[in-house]
């Protein structure tokens, strides 16, 4: 684990180290030898065109797929290093990796608050002594339950959902459901928050609010955020580090500024023929100066 140790010596400690990750579905190599790191207190973005293998990488990290090859080491808050590829899916949340889903997965018929209480299943289950203390209504469990509700209230306030706390989650408007999913992930008290296209389907105002929320999570909690995103305006404004995938391979990595001027990235997003003028909105998103458009 020397690699992790030396990395920890530099400014921000490395939370997650992905090394030579490969994922094969039958004959298709969806992810091919991808390596990158995610640090605490930073927002790391994984971007790439459709079918680049972003979600597959994500599913490997969060335990939904077992990688064909490669190593995923994660440093828990007590300093022990876990190899994610060897853990069953449900254990991964337990050691501090939380995730959201591209197509929102709430518990639609449970209330907003209940969604957040389910997220605290593990600590509450321990407090209820596997239901014995809970069934007897012992004070120790009641206290734990109250603390759970307070944590939930904290995240409801941060995401602006306090007023609708007792609604059925399925009745919330779309944007609120996205925020609730993030609040739910935060209620597992993660070290690394993984977000799968959190801005998908949001309007520009909601996207901006989301960016603020993610920044405040990064700065306030000091945890790492790993996100997959299509919305370049979000990625470019909030990311500290960007990893670009194309056809399952990593083609570039670095700061947002470095990535947006990378030739391979432009080619991956815009195709081979560089003579074509860029559509202005794409150019604006990438921040690329296009010849002929002037400055």
């Amino acid at each position, binding site marked *: 684990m020397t690699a992790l140790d030396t990395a920890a010596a530099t400014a921000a400690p490395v939370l997650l180290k992905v090394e030579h990750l490969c994922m094969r579905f039958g004959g298709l190599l969806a992810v091919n030898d991808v390596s990158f790191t995610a640090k605490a207190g930073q927002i790391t973005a994984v971007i790439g065109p459709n079918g680049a293998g972003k979600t597959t990488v994500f599913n490997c990290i969060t335990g939904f797929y077992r990688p064909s090859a490669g190593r995923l080491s994660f440093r828990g808050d007590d300093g022990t290093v876990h190899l994610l590829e060897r853990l069953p899916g449900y254990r991964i949340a337990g050691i501090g990796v939380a995730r959201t*889903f591209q197509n929102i997965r709430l518990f639609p018929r449970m209330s907003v608050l209940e969604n957040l209480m389910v997220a605290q299943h593990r600590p509450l289950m321990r407090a209820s002594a596997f239901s014995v203390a809970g069934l007897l209504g012992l004070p120790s469990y009641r206290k734990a339950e109250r603390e759970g509700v307070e944590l939930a209230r904290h995240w409801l306030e941060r995401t602006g959902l306090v007023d609708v706390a007792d609604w059925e989650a399925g009745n919330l408007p779309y944007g609120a459901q996205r925020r609730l999913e993030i609040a739910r992930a935060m209620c597992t008290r993660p070290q690394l928050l993984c977000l799968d296209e959190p801005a998908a389907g949001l309007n520009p105002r909601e996207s901006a609010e989301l960016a603020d929320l993610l920044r405040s999570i990064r700065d306030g909690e000091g945890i790492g955020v790993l996100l997959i995103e299509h919305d370049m305006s979000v990625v470019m404004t909030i990311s500290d580090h960007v990893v670009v995938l194309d056809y399952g391979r990593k083609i570039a990595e670095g700061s947002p500024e470095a990535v947006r001027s990378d030739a391979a990235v432009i080619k991956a997003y815009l195709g081979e023929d560089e003579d074509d003028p860029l559509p202005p909105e794409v150019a604006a998103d990438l921040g690329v100066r296009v010849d002929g458009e002037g400055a």
Partner: protein
Amino acid sequence: MEYFLQQLINGLTLGAIYGLIAIGYTMVYGIIGMINFAHGEIYMIGAFVAVIAFIVLGLAGITWAPAAIALVLLLSMAFTAVYGWTVERFAYRPLRGAPRLAPLISAIGMSILLQNYVQLLQGARVKPIPPVVQGGFTIIERADGFAVNISYLQILIILTTVALMAGFTALINGTPLGRAQRACEQDKKMAGLLGVDVDRTISLTFVMGAALAAVAGVMVTMYYGVIDFFIGFLAGVKAFTAAVLGGIGSLPGAMLGGLAIGLIEAFWSGYFSIEYKDVAAFSILVLVLIFRPTGLLGRPEIEKV
């Protein structure tokens, strides 16, 4: 050896019948992803229509076996198909898009309903009919008198099944109906947008499944010569086991699974104990579902995240 051969023949006959019923399960599962729990009852209905038709034909003086069998087959398939259509129309179609378990519960209700409907109208007593086809070949006769027989009826059952299977495969692979059906299996919404009448295709799937179950019902009526209103449950579970064993959604799989279940049952009752032959079928069902839920010929299902 001779005993083995005899059980093989019996098992193949039984397996052909299970296979015919299993096709109904597998097609319905393929197209709307539900276990049509009432399908065993549809088969029972087919058997009852067969008994009634044999008696009516007997009263009408049509006793020449080939004509009688052909007519009974046609009548049973036609009437049973209407039952298949009605069951789908009333118990399942309103539940498209309902929670996944709702159609299954509805199907269980339908199964109880049909069983009691037949029991009320036709009585709870067993219904015997005189043998329609008698005789057969003796293949081997041992010195001690044990003979391996294959009856004309067994030959008829196996040949009919093979012919139906061939025709059916051609239907699915080669006609617009089959194409529509396969399209609905993949993506009902898209098929609908492309002009496939999805409701009609699903209805026809039930009609075809019911018609094949009716054939199985006719065969069983002739083979055992006695039926009652309760035969659907066990046959249904066994045929469903066959469909799962073969890989649910796959037509050749259903036939293969049917044969496997028939053979296992024949050998089990031939060599171990006849009391526990149903336990054998249920155990296979449980074991297959636990260890290889995709069956022999099914495609694996990936959990989408």
